[in-house]
C-alpha cells in the first residue's frame, strides 16, 4: 500500500518536472513564432544545454525569394537575420582574402569555453598542483630529512652515466625547465603579472616567453627522442620494480631494495617523461603550425570506436586549436608536478644523487645501496673504480 502511494507521488512529481520541458519545446516555441524563448535564455544563463537547431537550421530559403523587382527581392529569400545566423553557426559560405580555412569562421562561440577553462580549471590545477607538490616536498624534507649514504661515502667512485648520456639529459632538462617557466608565465600573465606589474611588463614578458617557448621546443623534442633511444632498454619493467615499489624505494622498513641501472621510481619517471613528453610535443606541434596539424577530431573518432563514447568528430579549425591548447597545458602541468619531485630526489633529497648527472661519477657505496645489481654488472665488465676527486 505504502509502495503504491510512493509510486503515485513519484509519477506526479515526474509529470510536473517534464511538463515545463514539453511546453518549452512545443508551446513556448510556437508562441514566439519559432524564435528564442525565455526558457532558452534562462537555461543558457544556467549553463544548461539548449537545443540550438531552431536557430542553426533557420537560414532562409532561396526558393521562396521575392522577384528581383519585389520588396527585399535582392536578398534572394534570405533575410539579414538568416545571414547572421548562418555566420553565427558557420553555415554560410564565407569568402575571405586571408589564408586558410580558419579565416572563414567569423563567429566561434566555443572560444569562450576555452577562455573560461584556461582561466579557471587550468590555472587552479597549475596553482594547487605545483604549490601542493612543493609544500609536500618541504614537509617530507623536514619530516624525513635528507636520505644519506648508510655508513657514509666510501671514497671510491664508479661511472654512472657517460658524457653523451648526461648531455642528452641536460638538453632535455634545460629545455623543459625553460618551457615550464615560460609556459607558466604565459598562463598566469593576465591574472597575476598584469595586476602586479602592469600591461607593459606583461607584454615584454609574454613576447620573450613565447619566443623562447616556440624555439626551445625543438631541443626538447630532439632530446626526448635521444633519451628514449639511450635508455629504453634499461627501463623495461620487471619483477624487481614491484619489490622496489613494495618497499617504497627504501622508505618503508630497513634496507635498500635491489635495482639494476634504473629502479622502479626512475622507470616511472622515464615512462612518464616519454609518454607525456610525446603527447605534449604533438599538441605543441599543432600549436606551432596553427590549423595545419589538427588531431583531435581523428583521435576522438578512434576513442569513440574503441569505447562507444560520443565525442565530437567534426571540429572547427579553432576548436582543434583550443583543444590542443588546453591539452598542452594539462599534460605540461602534470609533467611539471612530477619533475619537481624528480629534481628534489636528484638534488637536496638524496646525498650523492646529483653526482650521477653532475660529473657522472657516483660514490661506490651509494651505488651499491641504490643500484646493487647494476654495480655487480659493471664490476663484472671490469668498470674502473676511482678515488673520489680523481676525474681523469
Amino acid at each position: 500500500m505504502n509502495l503504491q502511494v510512493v509510486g503515485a507521488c513519484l509519477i506526479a512529481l515526474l509529470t510536473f518536472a517534464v511538463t515545463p520541458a514539453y511546453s518549452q519545446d512545443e508551446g513556448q516555441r510556437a508562441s514566439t513564432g519559432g524564435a528564442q524563448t525565455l526558457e532558452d535564455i534562462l537555461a543558457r544563463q544556467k549553463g544548461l544545454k539548449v537545443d540550438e537547431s531552431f536557430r542553426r537550421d533557420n537560414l532562409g530559403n532561396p526558393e521562396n525569394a521575392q522577384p528581383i523587382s519585389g520588396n527585399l527581392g535582392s536578398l534572394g529569400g534570405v533575410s539579414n537575420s538568416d545571414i547572421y545566423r548562418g555566420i553565427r553557426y558557420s553555415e554560410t559560405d564565407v569568402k575571405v582574402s586571408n589564408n586558410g580555412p580558419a579565416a572563414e569562421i567569423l563567429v566561434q562561440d566555443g572560444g569562450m569555453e576555452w577562455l573560461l577553462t584556461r582561466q579557471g580549471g587550468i590555472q587552479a590545477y597549475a596553482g594547487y598542483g605545483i604549490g601542493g607538490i612543493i609544500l609536500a616536498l618541504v614537509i617530507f624534507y623536514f619530516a624525513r630529512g635528507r636520505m644519506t649514504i648508510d655508513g657514509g661515502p666510501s671514497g671510491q667512485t664508479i661511472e654512472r652515466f657517460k658524457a653523451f648520456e648526461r648531455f642528452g639529459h641536460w638538453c632535455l632538462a634545460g629545455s623543459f625547465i625553460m618551457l615550464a617557466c615560460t609556459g607558466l608565465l604565459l598562463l598566469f600573465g593576465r591574472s597575476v603579472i598584469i595586476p602586479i606589474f602592469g600591461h607593459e611588463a606583461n607584454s615584454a614578458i609574454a613576447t620573450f616567453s613565447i619566443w623562447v617557448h616556440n624555439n626551445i621546443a625543438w631541443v626538447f623534442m630532439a632530446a626526448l627522442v635521444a633519451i628514449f633511444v639511450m635508455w629504453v632498454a634499461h627501463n623495461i619493467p620487471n619483477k624487481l620494480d614491484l619489490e622496489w615499489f613494495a618497499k617504497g624505494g627504501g622508505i618503508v622498513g630497513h634496507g635498500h631494495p635491489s635495482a639494476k641501472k634504473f629502479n622502479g621510481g626512475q622507470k616511472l619517471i622515464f615512462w612518464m617523461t616519454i609518454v607525456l613528453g610525446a603527447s605534449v610535443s604533438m599538441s605543441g606541434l599543432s600549436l606551432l603550425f596553427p590549423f595545419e596539424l589538427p588531431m583531435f577530431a581523428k583521435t576522438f573518432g578512434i576513442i569513440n570506436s574503441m569505447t562507444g563514447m560520443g565525442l565530437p568528430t567534426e571540429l572547427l579549425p579553432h576548436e582543434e586549436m583550443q583543444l590542443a591548447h588546453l591539452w598542452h597545458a594539462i599534460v605540461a602541468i602534470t609533467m611539471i608536478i612530477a619533475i619537481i619531485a624528480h629534481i628534489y630526489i636528484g638534488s637536496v633529497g638524496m646525498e650523492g644523487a646529483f653526482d650521477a648527472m653532475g660529473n657522472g661519477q657516483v660514490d661506490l657505496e651509494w651505488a651499491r645501496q641504490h643500484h646493487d645489481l647494476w654495480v655487480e654488472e659493471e664490476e663484472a665488465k671490469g668498470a674502473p673504480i676511482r678515488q673520489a676527486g680523481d676525474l681523469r
Partner: protein
Amino acid sequence: MKTMFAAFAFTIAVSFGAYFVLSEMGFSSAEVQSAPSVRLD
C-alpha cells in the same frame, strides 16, 4: 658539470638556429596567416 653547461649552450644555440631557419622557410606567423596579396615588408 662541464657537460651540463655544454648542453645548456647547445640548447640556446639550437633555439636561435630554429628561429632563423623557420623564419627563412616562411613559417613566420605573418607569412603563414596572410594571403599573397598582403605586403609584409
